[in-house]
């Protein structure tokens, strides 16, 4: 079972995403939080297999939180989940060394697949990004 922490400031989105992930047999949502600060204050950080972080959040955005988590333990597995649009986010994410960079717009199957692969130790960058990169 893969224990996932979801950090997303929009309640409706957070609930829908966690319901979707909970429907998978091998994924369970260990915690759902709405701000960057709440991630860092989560008491059982070590039980989380994967941090799924939104980028644009109040009180510490996804990139800052990812950086701090890596400072606490560089083996923490982190995936950023974003709507992608601001340039420079991906570069920054790569610099921090996150394991995944996923887009909210892609099919849920891709997101769950990516979660499994990251949990197994791979790095995953959304295949949609390649296209967006060219478009941008």
């Amino acid at each position, binding site marked *: 079972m893969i224990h996932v922490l979801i950090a997303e400031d*929009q309640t*409706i989105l957070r609930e*829908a*995403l966690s319901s979707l992930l909970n*429907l998978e047999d091998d994924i369970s949502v260990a915690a759902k939080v709405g701000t960057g600060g709440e991630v860092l204050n989560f008491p059982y950080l070590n039980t989380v297999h994967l941090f799924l972080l939104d980028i644009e959040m109040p009180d510490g955005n996804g990139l800052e939180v990812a950086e701090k988590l890596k400072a606490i333990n560089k083996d923490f597995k982190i995936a950023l989940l974003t*709507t992608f*649009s601001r340039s420079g986010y991906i570069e920054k994410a790569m610099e921090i060394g996150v394991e995944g960079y996923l887009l*909210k*717009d892609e099919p849920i199957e891709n997101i769950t697949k990516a979660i499994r692969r990251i949990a197994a130790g791979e790095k995953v960058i959304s295949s949609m990004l390649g296209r967006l990169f060219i478009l941008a």
Partner: protein
Amino acid sequence: MEEKGVGLMFRIYPKDQMKWFLFLDISLFVFLFYNLMQSYSLPLFVKISLYIIIFACYYFVLFWKDWRFFISSFIGIATLAVLAVYINESMLLYLFIFSDASGRVRSWPYLLANLLMITFSYIVVFSVTYNHPLYFIDTIYLPFLFLQLILPFVMRYIKRVYSLEQDLEIAQNKLAVYAKEEERSRIARDLHDTLGHTLTVIKFKSELAIRLIDQDQDRAKQEMSGVLVSARNASKQVREVVTALKHIKISDELTNGFKLFKGALTNLIVMGEKSIPALSEVQETMLALSIREVFVNCYKHSQADRVTIEFKQEENMFKIPIKDDGIGIDSSKLIKGEGFYSMRERMKLIKGHCEWISKKNNGTTVILQILLNSEE
């Protein structure tokens, strides 16, 4: 005019000077040719050579504004002086060719040297032919000399006004492009921040509904009604993005002002920018647009060397006096102006008003003011 024609004219005559000078120049050369051919004191071969020399000098003067201008106009003026001595002093009238040309040179020393040479030609010609260097003062040639001496300044003035108009057009185009760019990035940002999120919600909820529909129809139904709400939201957001009043900041308008006045060699001085109070988006936008209106008017009409804008708070009034040291404006003209009208409307919208104080040749002061905390 056909394009071909324009292209040809462009090559044989500088395009930017054509509007004002071409016909004058042609007339002078036609008459010069006629006068030369009418006189019999010189052999035809010499006359034609001198005509060509003058024409060549004129051509150099037309296209060159550096030391070659100086040399060419010197030769040209000297040649005309020689013709005046050998044929008739009326040839001095053709010095208009070179006085006209010196109006287009940018360097003051060249211009003054040219005028001195022209005056000197009169003195030389009259001392040779009448043995009296200042004899021309008693003749009809005096007003002609006078006209030849002031012509360059008239030309300069015309050119300056003409180029100011062009500058203004360029500046306005730049501003328009800039505003369009801003608007585009605002729409992109707004779409991402609102519609982007809503569509993502729709996507997630639909996926959830698809997965749930076999196991838990009630929940699937719930999710689908959530999708419906979001979809309605989305269309509302699109409307909002499109119709939203663009927020314009005062600080951006000041930056635009600096750019605008830089082109006109006018100093813009900003005072008390720190005392701009917290304003609502509408208030700030309306003030910024009014400031823009005043700046553009100063730029177009005032001929000011210095424009001062000040921000100050007096009790619960926020005042923005904008002063210039330009030529001032007639208040009857002002009230008819559309710019002034829209400015007054804008200020009324935010429960403020504007005053306009102006004296002829004594600058203009516009005071924008609003009552703060007037919304409660």
